[in-house]
């Protein structure tokens, strides 16, 4: 018996002109692990919400949507609440109560279990997730990743048949995200619970998935295994292919009909290909000439700590960024990256050492775009910063916001909100732009757009200093990278050299190809190297 079955299902929003979902046919069997891909605005969220009727938006529906062969709307509310679990994107917004124990019990309270049963179920779940020592904690004391695990656990306590997750890791750092996805995998593998997940981190999620749904423009474009999905996307020459794992993108280019999902498989394919072949061109020659040799930011033996008695967060930090350069600071959590950004921004002052800034107008793009939205429409919000009409025109054009000027900032999608925040910042005409995790929660398409905008800025002489966890993004677009550890830079180089030197903290392409090529850092690098060596 199929868990979900959609037959010619279409959906239209009340004021929408076009259908948001168009004649979708699909089935989901019990115990399956299914990944949904699609750009933002493709209809992923709309589709997933239809599967949980209390969350489904109002609108016209056509066709059939069956849960266990019954019309989903005839499912009684109690069954629906307990059987279909739904995890939303933002870890903070989903938590209702102030204590972990209460949050875990929330759903069971709704279902009307008595205290003894709740104690048992909650205890069981807390032990399964290994969160029993958080039990008495306040929610506010948890990290983002822990909060999202709590959300998952509080749904699991209700013993659902299926869990639907809408980009659950987009607000988490890489460590938290991997941990979360591992837990999802465990739930599917050890408990047999059906998983339906929308996720940007395809590299991690595809190897776990049984099937992939690709949604495009409200249509179900592909319903296949991950490998087949890759093949189909490549054959269609679909832009979604560039969101697929690097191993698939590289190897499918080199070898006919091979679509590996993991780095291990990718590496094996590459090594198999070059077995007994001579590598004539092991490295790409890249020029690393800085755009300018004038220093825009210069740190000289800088020390910083928050409290007099506390440890140094930044110790003996010296580095510089040139004018018009795009510089990326990488490293784990709590190593002092964001502190460095705040030192440049002037929010913090060092207790030793010197910071020279050649330019005056320094602005920071905050991690949460919401922290900047003041007005009712995008246009008014931009006018709040600068009245000059030409400037607004220029910026909206650069950030592709022109068609959104009348919208309310909170009606924009995540990526659009990021762009609006960036547009507001750009109206201040920064000479030095500081970015804190700008790619968080962005899909591949928005990342490319962002990179384009940033390129254009640097070409006009704007200096950009970015803090990021996003290795792939840094490798592709950043001029120079620095690795932060324990309050200091431990390595610094032009990004190509930087990543080719690292062995763990580097791009997937490099991890796959480093045994064959010396500096295949990006997908493009590896493919170019292959082209040069294949003949």
């Amino acid at each position: 018996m199929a868990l979900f079955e959609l037959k010619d299902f279409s959906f239209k929003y009340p004021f929408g002109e076009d259908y948001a979902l168009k004649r979708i046919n699909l089935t989901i069997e019990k115990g399956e692990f299914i990944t949904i891909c699609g750009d933002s605005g493709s209809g992923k969220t709309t589709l997933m919400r239809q599967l949980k009727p209390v969350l489904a938006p109002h609108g016209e529906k056509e066709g059939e949507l069956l849960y266990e062969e019954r019309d989903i709307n005839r499912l009684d509310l109690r069954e629906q609440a307990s059987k279909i679990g739904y995890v939303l994107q933002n870890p903070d917004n989903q938590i209702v109560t102030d204590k972990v124990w209460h949050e875990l019990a929330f759903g069971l309270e709704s279902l009307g279990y008595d205290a003894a049963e709740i104690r048992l179920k909650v205890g069981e779940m807390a032990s399964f997730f290994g969160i029993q020592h958080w039990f008495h904690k306040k929610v506010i004391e948890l990290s983002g990743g822990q909060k999202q695990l709590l959300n998952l656990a509080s749904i699991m306590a209700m013993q659902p048949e299926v869990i639907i997750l809408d980009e659950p890791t987009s607000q988490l750092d890489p460590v938290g995200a991997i941990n979360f996805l591992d837990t999802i995998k465990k739930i599917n593998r050890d408990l047999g619970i059906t998983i339906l997940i929308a996720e940007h981190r395809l590299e991690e999620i595809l190897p776990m998935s049984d099937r992939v749904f690709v949604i495009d423009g409200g249509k179900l474009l592909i319903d296949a295994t991950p490998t087949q999905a890759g093949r189909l996307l490549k054959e269609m020459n679909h832009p979604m292919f560039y969101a697929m794992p690097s191993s698939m993108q590289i190897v499918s280019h080199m070898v006919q009909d091979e679509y590996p999902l993991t780095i291990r498989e990718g590496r094996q394919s590459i090594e198999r290909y070059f077995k007994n072949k001579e590598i004539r061109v092991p490295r790409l020659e890249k020029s690393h000439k800085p755009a300018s040799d004038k220093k825009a930011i210069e740190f000289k033996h800088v020390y910083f700590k928050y409290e007099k008695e506390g440890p140094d967060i930044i110790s003996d930090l010296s580095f510089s960024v040139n004018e018009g350069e795009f510089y990326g600071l990488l490293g784990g959590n709590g190593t002092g990256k964001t502190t460095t950004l705040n030192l440049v921004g002037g929010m913090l002052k060092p207790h030793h050492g010197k910071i020279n800034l050649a330019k005056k107008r320094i602005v920071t793009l905050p991690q949460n775009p919401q922290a900047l939205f003041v007005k009712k429409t995008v246009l008014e919000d931009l006018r709040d910063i600068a009245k000059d009409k030409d400037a607004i025109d220029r910026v909206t054009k650069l950030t592709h916001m022109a068609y959104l000027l009348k919208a309310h900032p909170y009606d924009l999608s995540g990526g659009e909100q990021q762009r609006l925040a960036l547009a507001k910042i750009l109206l201040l005409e920064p000479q030095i732009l500081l970015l804190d995790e700008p790619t968080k929660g962005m899909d591949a398409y928005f990342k490319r757009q962002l990179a384009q905008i940033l390129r254009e800025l640097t070409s006009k002489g704007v200096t950009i200093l970015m803090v990021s966890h996003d290795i792939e993004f840094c490798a592709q677009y950043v001029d120079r990278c620095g690795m932060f550890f324990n309050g200091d830079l431990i390595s610094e180089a032009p990004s190509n050299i930087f990543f080719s030197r690292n062995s763990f903290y580097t791009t997937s392409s490099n991890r796959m190809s480093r045994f064959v090529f010396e500096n295949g850092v990006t997908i493009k690098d590896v493919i170019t190297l292959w082209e040069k060596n294949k003949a």
Partner: protein
Amino acid sequence: MVDCFEKYHPVVNFVYFFAVIIFAMFFLHPVYMALSLSGACIYSIMLNGKKALKFNLVYMLPSMLVLACVNPLFNHEGMTILFYLKDGNPFTLESIIYGIVSATMIINVIIWFSCHNQIMSSDKIMYLFGKVIPASSLIFSMVLRFVPLYKARIKTISNAQKCIGNDVSQGNVLRRARNGLKILSIMVTWSLESSIETADSMKARGYGLKGRTAFSIYKMTLKDKVVIGLLAILIALVAMGACSGLIYVNYFPRIQFTPVTVWSSFVFISYFLLCYMPIFLNIYDEIMWRISGQNV
């Protein structure tokens, strides 16, 4: 130190503080007030350390003096006239004493409340009201979730605004106020809009189904039952004593105590035990721990 009274069942805590605070408001008998006040002070020091005492002395004593002096200015009852005020009204010893007694009463109540605030955690309040007024209790829990979240948001927003040049700590008052309000306004929008997702999360977990229960982490143990029994006996004795007028003091026109009897000393001892109950429970706990030899 770790307080053991806090670990008792919320009903025990609630009944205890309810009784002690009501009694503290009621009894204006100096000896009974001394009992209650000393109990409150010792327990408050056990809970909050010496800082609590210092706070009490620095803030409470002056207000006590003021009250003691103000009362006779408006209250002219009493027989022992010290002198006459300019408007011809008498200034009496009884009213000074009554002023001191009233002030002590307030201080006593406030100190008991400070202990109550330490012991009655949000979880306990949730337990007590969760079954009676479930929706309001849930709002309480939600507010306690949101307040720190919004505080963090205020900080995030204020930082972000600083980054784009709207600094609350700089500029003249007008500019600062404008930036402060901007921060508040951004916080309001952010919070209202994000609450839609929170409501979704409640719905997704079945909020609104019939027959919702209220879970709590508390279990009534034998120890709790014994303490509740003790509490009930002590409260009953003290209340009976109060009803039969044993704890009553007449301040006007002349200060008059009721004579000491066997029954009244019984009530007195009960009140002493009641006010010192958390302290004794802590001592008992300490002794049991020592006897068990775990701390070797």
